[in-house]
């Protein structure tokens, strides 16, 4: 009997201890001190290592401040951050994507206004366009780590094998499909991408004609004519039927897999991509040995005054509007973006930094070279005054383009109908989502 009672004691004690631990775990102040900052970001493992090292160096330079890094891969990061913001448990400093500003800070008050911290953060290192793209309703919410644009990258090894020159104009791009098909066969395509990639490419094509952003936030509609959208449908048809861009069925046969992990990309059969310059390393890394990727000249339509680059901040740091220590958080951001010690630790893990002093630091260290340097130079040279609305990247707008183009690709809608729906359906979506 005594034995049973002891066991009961033990079990009851365990339950009580468990409950106490669980309750303690619910406390928002668990293990926290006033001098602890939390920062979250997404990225790959080398990015995580570099950022953690930068945080360690920041702690060394700022005795009494501890920084806790919270990091994940990109997949699921937005969902996690959204839940944290909704539950008021978000970190003090967060890395966000550009269009997330429309989700979390439509009126500019969703994040801390960095204008009030300009004594700590050296904003003079950032150009006016970068600051503007982090500003909503006059509130500077976000500071870009890097700016990125979609550019044309081609597998030069495959092009050499086919005896085809890298395209420099839209017509040349269309012509590479039949040329490569004739030289290398069915499996080879000069360029590949998702429907989202094509929508971005088509946007550039339209903006080069109109000279205006594709999405007009003020009127909640497309800033182009129905004829322009019919040209988009025509462009998709030309590229896919000309064997320049894999047809919808061909792409879908690989399932839901990232482009850089598809076998035809790895072995050079899909010989090009319209991709963010900040992400191009991810694509070159997966190529089988012996292949070289080159940056192509950016194609321009006759009479175009703007390249229609989708050029915008790729990653931005923001401060939680409920942050208890905004000055410390601002010091951290300034350290990561403008302090040579922090900049060297972060290196090029998030692409070429936008901060002038950071760029100079890395250039002096000889880190800016090759494809990265060429991409930066091309972006700098291209005419790019058009500022696109973040709503172009809204998930419903992206999916709207995908649904119609996929229908066209599978022959479920005619080219004429696809062109009309690209205008009417996307306008209806914009009217619904722009707030």
């Amino acid at each position, binding site marked *: 009997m005594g034995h049973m009672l002891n066991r009961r004691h033990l079990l009851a004690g365990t339950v009580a201890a468990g409950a106490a631990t669980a309750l303690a775990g619910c406390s928002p102040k668990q293990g926290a001190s006033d001098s602890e900052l939390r920062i979250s970001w997404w990225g790959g493992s080398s990015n995580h290592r570099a950022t953690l090292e930068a945080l360690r160096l920041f702690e060394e330079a700022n005795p009494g401040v501890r920084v806790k890094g919270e990091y994940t891969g990109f997949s699921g990061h937005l969902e996690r951050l959204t839940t944290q913001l909704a539950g008021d448990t978000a970190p003090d400093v967060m890395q966000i994507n550009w269009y997330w500003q429309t989700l979390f800070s439509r009126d500019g008050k969703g994040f801390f206004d960095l204008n009030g911290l300009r004594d700590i953060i050296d904003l003079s290192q950032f150009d006016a366009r970068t600051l503007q793209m982090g500003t909503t309703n006059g509130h500077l919410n976000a500071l870009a780590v890097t700016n990125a644009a979609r550019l044309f990258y081609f597998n030069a090894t495959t092009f050499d094998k086919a005896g085809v020159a890298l395209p420099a104009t839209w017509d040349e791009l269309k012509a590479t499909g039949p040329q490569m098909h004739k030289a290398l066969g069915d499996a080879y395509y000069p360029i590949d991408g998702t429907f989202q990639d094509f929508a971005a490419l088509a946007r550039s094509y339209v903006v080069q004609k109109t000279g205006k952003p594709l999405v007009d936030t003020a009127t909640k509609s497309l800033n182009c004519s129905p004829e322009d959208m019919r040209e988009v449908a025509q462009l998709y048809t030309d590229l896919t039927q000309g064997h320049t861009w894999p047809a*919808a069925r061909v792409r879908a046969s690989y399932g839901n897999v990232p482009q850089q992990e598809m076998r035809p990309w790895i072995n050079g059969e899909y010989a090009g991509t319209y991709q963010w310059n900040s992400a191009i390393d991810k694509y070159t890394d997966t190529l089988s040995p012996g292949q070289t990727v080159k940056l192509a000249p950016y194609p321009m339509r006759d009479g175009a005054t703007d390249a229609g680059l989708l050029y915008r901040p790729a990653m931005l740091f923001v401060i939680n509007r409920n942050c208890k220590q905004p000055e410390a958080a601002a010091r951290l951001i300034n350290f990561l973006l403008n302090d040579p010690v922090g900049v060297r630790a972060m290196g090029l893990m998030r692409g070429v930094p936008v901060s002038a002093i950071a760029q100079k630091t890395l250039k002096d260290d000889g880190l800016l070279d090759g494809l990265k340097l060429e991409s930066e130079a091309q972006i700098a040279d291209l005419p790019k005054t058009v500022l696109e609305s973040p709503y172009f990247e809204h998930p419903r707008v992206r999916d709207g383009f995908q649904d119609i183009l996929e229908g066209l690709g599978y022959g479920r809608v005619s080219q004429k109908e696809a062109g009309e729906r690209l205008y009417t359906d996307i306008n209806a979506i914009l009217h619904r989502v722009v707030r």
Partner: protein
Amino acid sequence: MYNNKLIGSMYVTPFIIGFLLFTAFPFIASFVLSLTDARLQDQLGAANFTGLANYGEMAGDATFQKSLGVTFFYVFVTVPLKLAFALLIAVILNFKLRGIGFFRTAFYLPSILGGSVAIAVVWRFVFAGDGLINQAFGVLGFGGINWLGEPDTAMFSIVLLRLWQFGSAMVVFLAGLKAIPEDLYEAADIDGASRFKQFWMITLPLLTPVLFFNFIMQIVQAFQEFNGPYIITAGGPLKSSYLLPLMIYEEAFKYFNLGYSSALSWVLFVIIAIFTAVAFWSQKHWVFYAQERDDNKGGH
């Protein structure tokens, strides 16, 4: 001296707390949210009460109607096929063969690996245009099939993933087969009944309680299928594998439409509840319980 009730209550307290926090509260909260225009990124206090507007919106939502149709198709194809396949394998594994234990383990293994993310990724590579199956077809001299690139075959690939996980249903069937008294088969043998007739007249009727249990479990699981379409096809092509759980997920976490997503969840819940209720109601017509058999025996 010790209050057994108090100690007993403490034993169940962790479960009660967990149930209230992680099941009952979200259950009720999701219904409340379904009556609002709550968005994931906003504070809940900012949500407006919209009554049944979210439910009404479904009537005009072509994506929902497509998703619902695809989901019903998936359930109606998968559940009967999986039950039939699991029963067939269970009957085979019920034979007294040398090394049968090994085969039972081998056939059960896929269910342990089951619908995990890793298996779904493997499945994607197996059925890809240049995947294992098409490579095998090539070796045999056949042309490949665009498994994931055509709406019909994409759904077929997802269905096969579910069928492949027949092990748990098979084990339950096997346990049911073991429980059928041998003397019934001996009597049937003496009466000259064929193997097929024995299966039809003895095995199947006595297996109906197990069949009923498996049916309910499979219906519930099939309506909740998520990993396969999410990882293998992302619901495509042309939304041909866009099952309702995937739509619920995307509405909440891609479009941040928490209110509408909650309403969709409740529609799915009601559909599952109706199927389960109809199954329970119908069992008096086709499920034969041992207790009834004994009662009937006594009556005679």
